[in-house]
């Protein structure tokens, strides 16, 4: 899990069936001062985080596998940070 900032969104028509209907956000991993620490990643966002909000991202597929055991997806927004 790491902190990230939501920097954008992506849309897709042709995708894995389990990605259908999910919101895809593009996140930049950040350190405690808000400085980027790596290249942008994509994550599913069931919480509806807004642009530039700080979020907690899980890089494990477990959250997705709660719905389906055959899910290849990982990177989930699992929390929106207040402070």
């Amino acid at each position, binding site marked *: 899990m790491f902190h990230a*900032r939501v*920097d*954008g*969104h*992506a*849309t*897709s*028509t*042709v*995708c*894995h069936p389990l*990605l259908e209907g999910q919101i*895809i956000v*593009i996140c*930049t991993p950040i350190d405690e001062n808000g400085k*980027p620490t790596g*290249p*942008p*990643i*994509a*994550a*599913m966002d069931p919480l509806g985080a807004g*642009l*530039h909000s700080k979020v907690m991202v899980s890089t494990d*597929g477990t959250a997705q*596998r709660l719905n389906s*055991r*055959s*899910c*290849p*997806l*990982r*990177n989930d927004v699992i929390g929106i940070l207040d402070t």
Partner: protein
Amino acid sequence: MKPGTVIGTVTLSQGAPQFQGARWLVVSPMSADNLKTGKGYSDYSTPIVYDNLGAGVDTPILYVEGAEATRAFDHPIPVDAINVAILDNISFAPPKS
């Protein structure tokens, strides 16, 4: 899951039996600059990605690396990266400063 641009394809003359009918893409992971401008290629190393969606060259995709990639199959398969989405539109606007 990472955004990447398809920069080529790979064909195999021989491969693991599970790979029969597989399609392979050479993918350039997108950097923040690529996402901002929507063009160009990063200098990150380029993974080979399993594809069953039919992505063409120069298409932006999302791919998953790691053990999760094998979960899309109902049989064991030695795959480490899989294409999960062909992207229609990407908006990327990091805050200025």
